[in-house]
């Protein structure tokens, strides 16, 4: 029973030790002297963001956003944690549930699988940007009318996905809608009403 197990067997290279090594090796040419000295003095924490972040210019719901973010930040976490656009939901963080669905240049994508920096220069639409002021988008109206949700957590992703489902031409029959909406999980089980809502919008003929 002396089976020794380890988890997290990473080498533990912190940014600080990386910088120290860098100062001795080839990265010298790439890293300004002042930065290395600052790191050695232990004040690197404060300037970390300056060298670890990249600029991002993206239009979100019609508003131009200029931010600096780390390359590892996902579009989902950018929206939720930095821009406080929390209508876009995190359900799995692995592209398996669809709760984080947003439109990038008009196409539905899982924002949890999208690194924010890849949206440079693009147009992102989230649930907050779907309505026209106080006038709900027809799909929002239809979800409300058909009770296409319960807890509401998957709802923004369902609605964003549903809009594209129609735009893509994949809402011709209830069966087709079920197939093309199966990337959006609703654990409360509102599918039956969601399909009705989408078919209603499709048949209503309003522009989505």
């Amino acid at each position, binding site marked *: 029973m002396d*089976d020794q197990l380890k988890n*997290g067997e*990473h080498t533990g290279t912190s940014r600080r030790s990386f910088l120290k090594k860098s100062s001795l090796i080839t990265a010298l040419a790439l890293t300004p002297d002042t930065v290395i000295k600052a790191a050695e003095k232990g004040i690197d924490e404060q300037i*970390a963001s300056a060298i670890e972040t990249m600029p991002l210019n993206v239009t979100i719901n019609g508003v131009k956003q200029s931010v600096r973010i*780390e390359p590892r930040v996902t579009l989902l976490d950018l929206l939720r944690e930095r821009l406080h656009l929390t209508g876009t939901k995190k*359900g799995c963080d692995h592209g398996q549930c669809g709760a984080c669905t947003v439109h990038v240049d008009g196409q539905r994508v899982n924002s949890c699988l999208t690194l924010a920096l890849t949206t440079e220069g693009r147009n992102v639409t989230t649930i907050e940007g779907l309505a026209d002021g106080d006038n709900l988008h027809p799909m929002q109206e239809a979800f409300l009318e058909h009770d296409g949700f319960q807890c509401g*957590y998957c709802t923004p992703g369902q609605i964003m996905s549903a809009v594209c489902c129609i735009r893509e031409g994949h809402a011709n029959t209830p069966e087709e809608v079920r197939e093309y909406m199966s990337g959006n999980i609703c654990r409360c089980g509102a599918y*039956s*009403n969601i399909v009705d809502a989408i078919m209603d919008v499709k048949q209503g003929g309003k522009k989505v």
Partner: protein
Amino acid sequence: MGIDKKSEPINRVDGRAKVTGKAKYFAEFEVPGVTFCVMVTSPVTRGTITTINTKAAERAPGVLAVFTHLNMPAIPGWAEQGNNSKLPSGGERYHMLGSNKILFNGQPVALVIADTLERAQHAASLVTATYNKAEHHTDLLKNKEKAAMPPRMGDYTRGADTNAHNTAPVVLKADYTVPIEVHNPMELAGILAFWEGDDKLTVYAKTQGVKSTQRTLAGAFKIDEKNIQVYAEFVGGGFGMGLRTWPQEVVVAAAARAVKKPVKLVLTRDQMFTLVGYRPYTIQHISMGATQDGQLTGIYHEATAETASYDDFTEGTVGMTRFMYACPNVTTKYRIVPLDRGVPIWMRGPGEATGAFALESAIDEMAYKVNMDPLQFRLKNFAETDPEKNKPFSSNNLKEAYQLGSERIGWAKRNPAPASMKDGEWLVGYGMSTGVFGAHRGESTCRAQLNADGTLLLQSATSDIGPGTSTAMVQIAHEVTGLPIEKIRFELGNAAFPPSGSQGGSATVSSVGSAVFDVCTALKGMLTEAGLSFDNGTVKPAAGKSDGLQEVLSKQNKTFFEVTKSSKGGAEQEKYSMYSFSIHFAEVRVHPATGVVRVKRVVTVADSGRIVSPKTAASQMIGGVTGGIGMALTEEGIIDHRFGRFVNNNLADYHVPVSADVPHIETIFVDKPDPITNPMGSKGMGEIALIGFSAAVANAVYHATGKRIRELPITPDKILSA
């Protein structure tokens, strides 16, 4: 006095917030200076931590603190409990980060707190630990000898002939298995906690009970409940997993006190499989005896379910068997097997759904054995009064429900012989089942505030995990006062509001709704005393009076009228057995070459008293059926017992139903008020929507194929190898 008219279907009062993304769930509140917590979990299933190295993580950018069992501040309430539990297993208590003991796989061993989520995630990956691994046991089938009777669920016997199930002219013996199922609400669990000083705590929680979370935190930190504020206005699904305030939520609150910053924890999806409960793996044996002409003479039902080594989780798995059918001799037993696993928690329908799969499958099997229509067999053994409690039912419209459902699905038109119907190359089958759950009513309190502008505000510390609590409450208030829906607002999810129970056990409308009914009735009385009355949707001077609401309020130096009422069931309820019933009819297609089962059509009927909110009630039935499709066909948490670890702890490998799995679902309500349960005449809805549905599918699969599948989920391999 109650409500005697039928309710109109209305849209959800909070629907607009949900479709616009404005509804805020616990992790979405903007708290200045919030920090992010990420947990490191154990890859070992039982043993001890020998070393844990947090230095690299502590040095990583943005890290505020790393907590392990070596430096975690003690939780005062836990320390008081001591280590030893009083459980059948004799196991130790689980106190997260309280010692170096590992009691289950995925147990948190370190918390990393940093200024951004990404930095916390990275730093967590730098924590290393070594373990002394002990032998573990996670397989119920290999640990049945540890089965013990839980203190809260004794054996039950009715009738003198305890052997009738063995000696009857027709005998059925069968074993049924329900696997681990995981709630998996779409919103990830967690908590957002911050302190003012050392004794005032505020949390945004994912909970089904703000008062229960408040009590748990007060007990853990030994501080007054009044100093703990809990918010949970919107909860992204629960299905039972939010009926407990989980250890990591308490520990994160303690960590927030230590770092003197707001701390937010959001679990990862794989942690949702190990740290917030699940439906326990349960094996059941049913032995059933009947006469040749289909009269039940004896039933023996034994269920054995897993629990944690540190907690005696218990649920009502064998409850339905005790009273559902008019059978003179019934014995039920329920046992739990402690394993090296996290603790289960009630999952929608809870044990009753597990038990109903076995009982309602067995009833179907017996009907075929005595050559009777399964519907006729149920009617022949119908219990007019509750044979367990020897009391009349407060209401029981099952016979009408059987009729409504069977007519809608076309039950009589099917060929009853198994494997007799086809649609192209697909085999066609029809199945039915019954579901039942107690119509509970707990104590609840509601505050009403009638403003000078004629709007009504209602407040109660209840929850809404999705069924539409506020919508139902506004409808009740509308029906009592006559005020229009848009002039009434119901607020919940705030522990500072008047107390109510947790949202669980299908009791919210009955409990909180009664308080709303009572407080609105009291408000009417208050207006009468003030010379006012509700009249046609507004407040008007009473007959012979001239002052309106504003004048009366200003003369009394008030800006509003307010009244708070507490409500609970009376002694008359003791005389009755109160249950909600459902009937499910399923039509399936089974592909003979691939073994694929598709649910083609569903008719589901609820006898749940008067329907308070028809639109949201229908959605609840649809949702329960959808969960039932998952239970029947796709859902199974699979553990590799060599490691004691899940192999499918994500939403790609654990299959909850998606849109393509779910047909159009037809719901029917008997919609007859129950005269006893509460002033609205309502009975619960959430559980019965799911209870029994999996048996309807299994029975339909039998009708389609002649193959009886007794182990859920009914996956293609089981059809092909049967």
